[in-house]
């Protein structure tokens, strides 16, 4: 899974996070280090699609984001597809 938008959604599924926290979380769970341009490209697209939204924060500069209901639905759907792919791949490997 290397689609930055899915990685960001998966990170926010755990809870609200700002950019740097997402970057560290993604590096920890997916072993993928997103660059700042890639991360904010994904954040911009996700916000435009209404899948994430900014939330109020004490820190003016480090803006946290939250996954929306639509974002959660999209993530669920994408993960189900991935899950099917993983299961199919694994069963075929066993058969071979």
């Amino acid at each position, binding site marked *: 899974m290397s689609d930055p938008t899915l990685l960001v959604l998966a990170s926010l599924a755990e809870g609200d996070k*700002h*950019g*740097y926290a997402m*970057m560290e979380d993604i590096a920890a769970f997916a072993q993928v280090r997103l*660059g*700042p*341009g*890639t*991360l*904010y*490209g994904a*954040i*911009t*697209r996700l916000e*435009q*699609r209404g899948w994430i939204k900014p939330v109020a924060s004490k*820190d*003016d*500069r*480090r*803006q946290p984001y939250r996954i929306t209901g639509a974002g959660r639905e999209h993530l669920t759907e994408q993960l189900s597809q991935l899950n099917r792919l993983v299961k199919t791949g694994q069963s075929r490997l066993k058969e071979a």
Partner: protein
Amino acid sequence: MRLNYFVARLYPKWWRDRYGEEFAALLEDARPGLAGTFDICKGALAMQLTNWSPKRILACGALAGLAIAGVATLFLTPMYRSLAILHVASGSGDKEILARVNSISNTVLGKDELRDLIRKLNLYPEERKRMTTEQLIEYMRNEVTVAPLDNFEGGKKVPAFKVQFAYPDRVIAQRTVWALVTQYIDQDVKLRDKDAYLAGELRPEGGIGLELLATASLPEEPTYPGRNKILFSGLAGGTLIGGLFALIFRLRKAPPKQ
């Protein structure tokens, strides 16, 4: 890295107004290196393109392609083209003249003759280090042009041929053309003698009578072979890439313009 803050300014204004502060905070926390700088450049370009009209993306792609091709042409080796014109003295028909010139060309531009010429004039000293003799001969053959010309004398069309050769050194280009036309004339004389012998004649009358009309020129200005092709390829490639980008970014939801 200060460079990252500078590169972040490449993002469009609407984006900087919305995300600029938090992006700067991310750069402070993450302190990306050179790979990060490249990533920011890529992100800024992508964000710029989402806000551009397809026509603008297409135009910029075409211009960028043309500019890259223009820079590439600066590295082309200048070539000098020397030219000589051979006049056909006999009254033979066009087909016969063409057949005879082709026959002479097969000998003059044949493997043995060109190999001797390359050695004699010390042509392509650098290329000889990395090319086989066959490759070198083919390479030289591609630089030689033998083509018919419309030549009029006293209002009457008199057939003629140009012999042209391109080389990075203008004096050597001239010497080579001179050697080539000499061989064309020699070969024609040989063929005429052979024809006369076969016909049982004492005097050669059956050939086409090649004569030198204009001697090998010493070229003043260089030419850059393939420059137009490179420029056109750059323009076409840039337009194609611009078109693809325009299509990709049109499929994405465009952010609001401000």
